């Protein structure tokens, strides 16, 4: 199987580094971006199999990035997994699930992320 390629997008460099190290240890190739605009810029030159995408980022948030990925024929087949950070009060509503799905993301993981859960989701989508 060819090496799968994943882009991690989050404005928290510590999280990007931790997730990237975990993915690299599982032999994925990883690209990193630290806000939505940087991610879109990198997606012009690289085509990952999957994007792990934070929601709340400066310059361009994850919902907008996801919409742009999914509305472009060149990138619409990239799997998008969104990271959300909804707290207790809002978690009781369907905010995360509803918005995560209707924005055409393929999956979501709540923050603080469970790394094992994230890896399972990645494996499920990439058939790894």
């Amino acid at each position, binding site marked *: 199987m060819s090496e799968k390629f994943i882009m991690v997008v989050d404005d*928290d460099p510590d999280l990007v580094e*931790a997730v990237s190290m975990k993915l690299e240890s599982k032999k994925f190739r990883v690209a990193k971006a630290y806000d939505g605009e940087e991610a879109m810029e*990198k997606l012009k030159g690289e085509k990952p199999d999957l994007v792990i995408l934070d929601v*709340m980022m*400066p*310059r361009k948030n994850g919902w907008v990035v996801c919409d742009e990925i999914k509305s472009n024929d060149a990138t619409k087949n990239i799997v998008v997994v969104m990271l959300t*950070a909804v*707290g207790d009060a*809002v978690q009781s509503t369907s905010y995360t699930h509803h918005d995560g799905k209707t924005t055409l993301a393929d999956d979501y993981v709540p923050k*603080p992320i469970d790394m094992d859960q994230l890896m399972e989701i990645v494996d499920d989508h990439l058939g790894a």
Partner: protein
Amino acid sequence: MSGRFARLYQESEASVNHESVYLYQKLAADRVNIVFLSLDFLRNPRQITCMVAPGAAPAAAGQDHDQGAAGLVSLFPHRFDPAVMAVVFTALGQRQIPWYAVASSGSMLTVVTDFAVQQQAAEALAEYVQLPSGHGPLRVQQDYDDISRRLKSAPETVAQYVEARIRTYGIAVKTGLKLCRVQFYSHEQVLLARALEGLAGEKAGFAYICANRAPDGHGYVAVVLDPGQPPADAPDIAAYLPPALCSSRLEIRENVEMLCFHGPHFGDRYGIADKALNCLENAGIPVWLAGCVGATVSIIVPPGMAEPGVEALSTTFDRP
């Protein structure tokens, strides 16, 4: 590079001012988010450097602490290499670019500088590091006010403020660390850079680095080495320092321990540092050094205090 912030600085004598309110406590009481914190309580005077939104500073902390407009420049990933801190001393020291504090997180080394010279500082640092091929131009991020407005309008993070317990990615403990703390003056930065390069040459990795500078320019840099071996066998910074910096100006403590945790949007939320430090104080655990960089809190405590520290933090912070 960050947007524009206000830099606040507080010095206090622990023995005299035990009842005084620390800066991070005042800011938490006024619900002011600290986007950067570096605290050195190892010796008197105790030093605290904080960065907050420009408009928040005078009301929350008092004009006497406000040192003016400042910005953050972050280098990442540092890969725990002391040579990254050597870059700060060399690049900024040689060009006499003012900087006031440094602290590390799990991947970042963040430097506080005057906002007016932030771009200059970033360009100076960039000369000593290899930027990735896809790196964009160095640019200032959005103003804090703009980010703050967006956070308030988005339930994504507003919800965080009503967490019954503050969620984290887990609380990590490191033991058997070697703390090397050196007092320095501006003209000695190159000497410190050489010492750190010496440690890097011996493949020494750090667990935490911080530096705080007083208004008169002198400062303390603390390098907490993670030797991965008995601390006594760790590389000796004194071997790389000139005698003037090795005498009474170098302090070494072995077997120190570190608590480190990280949570969603910690960098956007008020009161995180205050809650963490209060948990430890209430449990009688001394804090020697602490830093809040990005979404990571790092706390250095005396030997044997990390595990009790985890228990103390667990009263307020959730561990998955």
